[in-house]
């Protein structure tokens, strides 16, 4: 039997402490966060965010199946969320764009177009979008608008390989960008967000994670998670066996951690977030005890695992088993799991 002696008592660093405390605090109101999903927050319609001063016209984008298409929350800046339609790759994105000059004024323009953009924004370079997808439809030739005019548009079977993602250091978004080009007063630009989610089939191979770890003559445990690949509404089932316990354990938690790495090479930046802290055990076990684990993933805001999205970033998930002893020393073992989105789980 070989023990991986990678299981090292982590010194109690200040950072960890702050993090832990913050997490604990967030935990106590977990129900609020998870279940009562910010229903009382103010939802702003998209057009309020258009050019704040003196818009020359109203621009409205509607999707052809807008009434039936599923809408989901999308977090915007300043903590606001909006409801936006949900698409997946290869779908047709079609609809109408209506432009209405303000109270009978004439609107001159040098052409109207709509673009479908898939953009990655790195926060260290905020405002600078890298478009990995860019499709254009010309809607109108230069001319004048006197009254409300509606333009149909369609992007068919659009390749949208990446999912919408709002991370710590990176954001991936999809927008429809309507541009009314004008020579003098500046062009009118209007954005309509939408969300893309892509679904994976059930993996054909999904091994359990089984591992024996320990500190020599101090603590030996064996743990098992039933799968290595979980979908977003999955349940992690597992067991933790205590083979040898010579330290006074206070409790044991399972954390779900997200590791977002951005950039590449020497500029790689890694940010780790703890999305869930789930207490598995209270008190000190003795050898021979086995502690059950059942963690429902649905309450947590998880995304699928993303591998090297457009060479810009990756998002990985880890299960971190943490034991805390009576002197608040933390012993942990981290295991990567693959998250995926199943079709029926929205």
């Amino acid at each position, binding site marked *: 039997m070989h023990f991986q002696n990678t299981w090292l008592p982590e010194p109690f660093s200040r950072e960890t402490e702050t993090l832990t405390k913050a997490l604990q605090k967030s935990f106590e109101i977990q129900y609020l966060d998870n279940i009562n999903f910010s229903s009382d927050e103010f939802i702003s319609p998209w057009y309020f965010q258009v050019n704040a001063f003196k818009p020359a016209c109203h621009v409205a984008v509607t999707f052809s199946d807008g009434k039936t298409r599923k809408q989901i929350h999308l977090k915007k800046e300043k903590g606001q969320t909006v409801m936006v339609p949900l698409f997946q790759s290869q779908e047709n994105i079609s609809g109408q764009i209506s432009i209405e000059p303000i109270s009978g004024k004439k609107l001159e323009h040098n052409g109207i177009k709509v673009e479908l953009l898939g953009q990655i924004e790195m926060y260290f370079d905020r405002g600078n979008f890298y478009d990995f997808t860019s499709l254009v439809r010309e809607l109108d030739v230069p001319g004048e608008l006197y009254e409300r005019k509606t333009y149909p548009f369609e992007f068919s079977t659009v390749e949208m390989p990446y999912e919408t993602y709002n991370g710590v250091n990176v954001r991936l978004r999809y927008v429809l960008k309507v541009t009314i080009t004008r020579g003098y007063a500046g062009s009118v630009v209007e954005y309509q967000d939408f969300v893309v989610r892509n679904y994976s089939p059930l993996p054909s191979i999904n091994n359990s994670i089984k591992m024996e770890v320990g500190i020599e003559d101090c603590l030996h445990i064996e743990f098992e998670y039933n799968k290595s690949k979980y979908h977003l509404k999955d349940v992690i089932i597992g067991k933790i066996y205590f083979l040898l316990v010579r330290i006074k354990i206070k409790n044991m938690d399972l954390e779900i951690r997200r590791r977002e790495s951005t950039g590449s090479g020497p500029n790689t930046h890694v940010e780790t977030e703890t999305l869930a802290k789930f*207490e598995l055990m*209270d*008190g000190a076990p003795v050898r021979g*005890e086995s502690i059950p684990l059942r963690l429902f993933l649905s309450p947590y805001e998880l995304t699928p695992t993303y591998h090297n999205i457009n060479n810009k970033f990756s998002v990985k998930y880890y299960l971190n088993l943490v034991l805390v002893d009576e002197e608040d020393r933390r012993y942990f073992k981290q295991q990567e799991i693959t998250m995926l989105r199943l079709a029926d789980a929205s």
Partner: protein
Amino acid sequence: MISDGLEDEEKWLAAGVAGLQQNSFYMHRALDSNNLKDALKYSAQMLSELRTSRLSPQKYYELYMRAFDELRKLEMFFREENRRGCSVVELYELVQHAGNILPRSYLLCTVGSVYIKSKEAPAKDILKDLVEMCRGIQHPLRGLFLRSYLSQVSRDKLPDIGSEYEGDENTVMDAIEFVLQNFTEMNKLWVRMQHQGPTREKEKREKERSELRDLVGKNLHVLSQIEGVDLDIYRETVLPRVLEQVVNCKDELAQCYLMDCIIQVFPDEYHLQTLETLLGACPQLQGTVDIKTVLAGLMERLSNYAASSAEVLPQFFQVEAFAKLNNAIDKVIEAQDEMPVDAVVTLYSSLLKFTIHVHSDRLDYVDRILGACVKKLSGKGKLSDSKATKQIVALLSAPLEKYKDIDTVLKLSNYPHVMEYLDDVTNKEMANVIVQSIIKNKSCISTADKVESLFGLIKGLINNLDSKLLEELDEEDFQEEQNYVARLIQMLHNDNPEEMFKMICTIKNHILTGGTKRLPFTVPPLIFNSLQLVRQLQSQDENATEDEAPVTPKKIFQMLNQTIEALISVPVPELALWLYLQCAEAANDCDLEPVAYEFFTQAYILYEEEVTDSKAQVTAIHLIIGTLQRMHVFGIENRDTLTHKATGYSAKLLKKPDQCRAVYACSHLFWVDDHDIKDGERVMLCLKRALRIANAAQQMANAARGSSGSVILFIEILNKYLYFYEKGLSQITLASVQSLIELITNEMQNENSASDPAAEAFFASTLRYIQFQKNKGGAVGEKYEPIKV
């Protein structure tokens, strides 16, 4: 420090209660507005108060009970939610989102209870899940309470036989499995408490643990309440599993408590049928476990069961209960080398009680137990351990109580051997118990052999075990105890004279060893027993050839003579004298003149040599005179000697009035109607002498005190005169009577004489008597007629 600790604890409890109440308030508000999400949130927060580690079990229990009440309400809410169409499956998942395990577990159990009730899933699956998920709480105190909660909410939802949750795939075995598992886990937690924390707080921990024991024991109670646990299931599953846990936990406190629990909660019949298994576990328990209490409890239960109805007895025989118990006890004693003596005796004592209840006819069993006990005690000398002593007394008393017959007890050959291990005081107490039992039950002991064994048993009361001890003894207690012995001696009886004589000899041999303090108590009953036998012989064998009979009055008297002699050395001469006189009278009735003479001689010697107190002399002389008066066996010569002596003694008494009275009493020795002794001269001599003495007495009184003494002696003498006058004694003349009356009248009118109302009354009634006789007429009347009053 300690008081601070307590104060702090109160504070923590108060804080916990406050937090709990606050959150329960919000929870109720959420419940009232049907806000499930808030209800869950606040209930979880409320339950978080139970996560504290600062409270002692007792305080924690207070907090728990409050939470428990709130959870009941939450459960009702869940049930209503379910009725309103909220899926209980979803609820079951929802509560598991809670981040902290303790609130999560409580909520899970609460919803689980609703889940089972909804029957949307098989009860067994839910129960299994619940009991499994509770494993997350490894903290002993919190875990125990959580599991206790689980046990509580699931109690009425077990798939027991006849329960609505039984059927299809849910069987009673699932219910049992669930309870057993919860029990096992709880016990583990409970045992673990012992090993946590500093060693110096061991005692405190043990105390806390015993406060919690009923939480664990409750599971066994639940098991016993499950209808479906029949004998087979109990034998095959329940008992082995429970015992496995008990044995394997290797914890003294737990083993002791749980064994007792098993014994108390399950039916007697089950115990009887699984005796082997149950007893088999005993030697496997820790050496420190108080196994005697456990086994004693078991045997007591079984004894009561046996006593409850005769119908159950065959079961005991069928399973060979005695052999198994006996075996088990032997093994336990063998296994636990250092078992204290009192524990050993307690075990045997319980077994004995069991045996006499169940196998009342098997004296051999009882004796075997006593024998085993002796074997275990041998080589240890007398016991000084008070507990052990107490237990031996209990052990020895049991057969007495049960059989109520000393006969049976005397058949137990090992009984006296056990008694030997008692210290002197206890030995005596035990002897007392035996004696009282005999007296109470009026047991008849009727052979010399039995008497021998009995006295062997009660030798603590009979012999001088330790003279020191005797001195320390309270006089009253001693008298009481010896009075009991006396009563016992009188109860020993056999109608067969030969056997009776043997018995008497046996008794004699024993009591003569009793020492001077006891003899005055024990000899008299023996004497009277013997005299009774004498009278019996006399009435039976009027015409039997005496010399050939094995028992003759002669022989008895010889023996008595020796016995009474023993009293002289005590010394209690008065008692001995009295007994001699009793014997003499008996000998008189048997027409044994020499014997009677011998007894009288002895009595006289005693009188002369030993009775020195003047008061005692007065009493003795009157006894002698009275007895002698009734003797008819003596020839003239012997009689003369004896009467002469008696009169002599009378005249030599110290005080004149005593002399006077004794002398006039002697007059009766010469005038016995029945035996045709009518010696008027000597009667007169006595009476005249009495008069002289009375006179002298009065003069002495005059001289000494200046007033004449009482006339009462004269009145008494007058009465004697009248008696003999009536009898027709020729020497008593009318004139002498008349002059005596005048003398008395004069004396009484004499101014010098102090008035004596008693004397006056006596005289008046004497005169009345004379008048009465006058009025009678006839011969008597004529005789009295001339007397002038």
